[in-house]
């Protein structure tokens, strides 16, 4: 069963007197239940617009979107959804406890359940010690964590995070990544947009790549990253004369990087390259296939879109 279904969604805004600006166009994708779906793309690609359509903050010009088989216009479905906006802004004079109370009440939770979840979540996001402090005194990272608490107060089945890692320090990013992993283990569906592709590679099992308002690619991450290797990379401490002699005549390139040497070997020379590598002994640091990374794939899609070949 799919947790999120988007069918033929387009959104245009009036631009000037007669013009129109296309924010997203012909968007169709599905997010299976229990999946972690990374929504990627450069700024202005239409990621946030799509997220806002899913939360009924924006009405699509054409098409329809459903969450857990209910149209996103049905307010009741939002009691099963958690949302963390990009750069969350809350009420300055409320405390995290009051913020979570608000989230719980509007999701139809009982006071006892709200109290129980508030204790759990404030511990999870490490805000237990400031639970009665005003939000206006919080740093960006703390606000982000309070936002995570608010998004999860109702124990949602579907979680939508808009750029959850942006502006966080390494510790904050780790905490966020751990939370997403924990939610996945609980079987929740997570839909999140991000610029930080390393995190997406780490956390997602499905990705969608948006460029210029159109969804260029949707696939399982494993499919995207399991293309036949274009070559091989060996990282060595020192390239011995013996190894250099074995590599002679093969198609290879090498570059120095902070005391290490990276050698790139073409795929057709793999056999001979392996012999050379065997000679390296302890000097070999790493030997891995050269496959396009997620970053390469995203950049490729951006270039294709800009070249108008999409």
């Amino acid at each position, binding site marked *: 069963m799919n947790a999120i279904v988007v069918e033929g969604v387009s959104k245009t*805004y009036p631009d000037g007197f007669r013009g129109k600006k296309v924010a997203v166009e012909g968007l169709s994708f599905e997010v299976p239940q229990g999946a972690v779906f990374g929504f990627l793309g450069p700024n202005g690609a239409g990621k946030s*617009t799509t997220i*806002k359509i899913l*939360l*009924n*903050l*924006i*009405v699509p010009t054409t098409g329809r979107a459903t969450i857990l088989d209910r149209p996103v216009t049905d*307010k*009741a*479905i*939002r*009691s099963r*959804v958690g*949302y963390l*906006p990009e750069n*969350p*802004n*809350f*009420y*300055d*004079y*409320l405390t995290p406890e*009051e913020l979570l*109370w*608000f*989230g719980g*009440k*509007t*999701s*139809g939770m009982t006071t006892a359940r709200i109290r129980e979840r508030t204790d759990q979540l404030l511990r999870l996001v490490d805000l237990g010690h400031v639970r009665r402090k*005003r939000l206006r005194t919080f740093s960006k990272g703390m606000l982000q964590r309070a*936002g995570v608490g*608010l998004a999860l107060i109702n124990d949602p089945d579907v979680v939508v995070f808009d750029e959850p890692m942006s502006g966080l320090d390494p510790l904050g990013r780790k905490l966020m990544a751990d939370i997403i992993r924990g939610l996945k283990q609980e079987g929740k569906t997570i839909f999140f947009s991000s610029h930080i592709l390393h995190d997406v590679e780490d956390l997602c099992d499905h990705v969608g790549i948006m460029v210029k308002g159109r969804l260029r690619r949707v696939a399982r991450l494993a499919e995207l990253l399991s293309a036949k290797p274009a070559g091989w990379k060996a990282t060595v401490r020192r390239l011995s004369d013996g190894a250099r002699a074995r590599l002679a005549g093969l198609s290879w390139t090498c570059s120095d990087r902070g005391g290490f040497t990276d050698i790139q070997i073409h795929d057709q020379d793999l056999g001979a390259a392996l012999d050379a590598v065997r000679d390296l002994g302890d000097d070999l640091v790493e030997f891995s296939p050269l496959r396009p990374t997620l970053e390469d794939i995203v950049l490729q899609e951006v270039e294709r879109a800009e070249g108008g070949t999409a």
Partner: protein
Amino acid sequence: MRNLWAIGRITFLEGVRSRFFYGLFVVACLLFSTTYALSYLFPRDVVKVAVDLSLATASLVGLILTLFWGTESLAKDLEKRTIHMVLAKAVSRSEYIVGKFAGLAVLIGVSMLLLAALASLSVWTVDALTDDQYGVIHWSLFLLSLAMTTLMYGLVASVIFFFSSFVSSTFLALGLTLVVYLIGQSVEELRLLIQAGADGIDISPMLTAVVTVAYHVFPNLAVFDFKAQAAHGLPVSASTVVWSALYGALYTSVMIALSAWFFRKREFP
């Protein structure tokens, strides 16, 4: 109802804890404390002037609070995009508007109660220190005037909500509300002036039509003004009070219903 309570509560808490609230109350205390000195500038009408001044001070501070909070509570939510986190919950747009207004109305009510206490204290002090021959306080009229002012500010707040529900700028919503407030204060006088006519002055049918339309469209805020009656102890009929209160409640409800209607169509990119 659960959603209205949740939204109303956070709106009230956000307002009552703001620095602006406390700052303005300090200013109000200072203004009320001058009542005694200023009243004695009119030795024959000390108590009347004290009542008038106190009511005017409470009205002024109440108006500033209403305009500030009215624009803050809705327009700031839109500007700072706090509304995203509210509407991402199982809350309808109408519930958001009504809940916000309920919280704001309670906030205005509590503020006016505090202002009424300060105003009462200031006139009571003047009265206690003044001989009865210089006037007496008509407490029921005094409190009635404050209650009707509170109702009027509820109506003004609903007008701010109405404009905020479809204009995108906080200042524009505030500006338009101020225009409505000023028209509302004088529309009845204008209509009476035109109805009475004047010797040698021709009033065009067009002007008469404009004033008549304005009278029916803009809120007639003069119906909430009982300051003169409170200061001079003039009689006020129960029906006048009831009709004024009903008028206020009806106009406010229409404004909030229209705000909710506009808001339902609004998008939050």
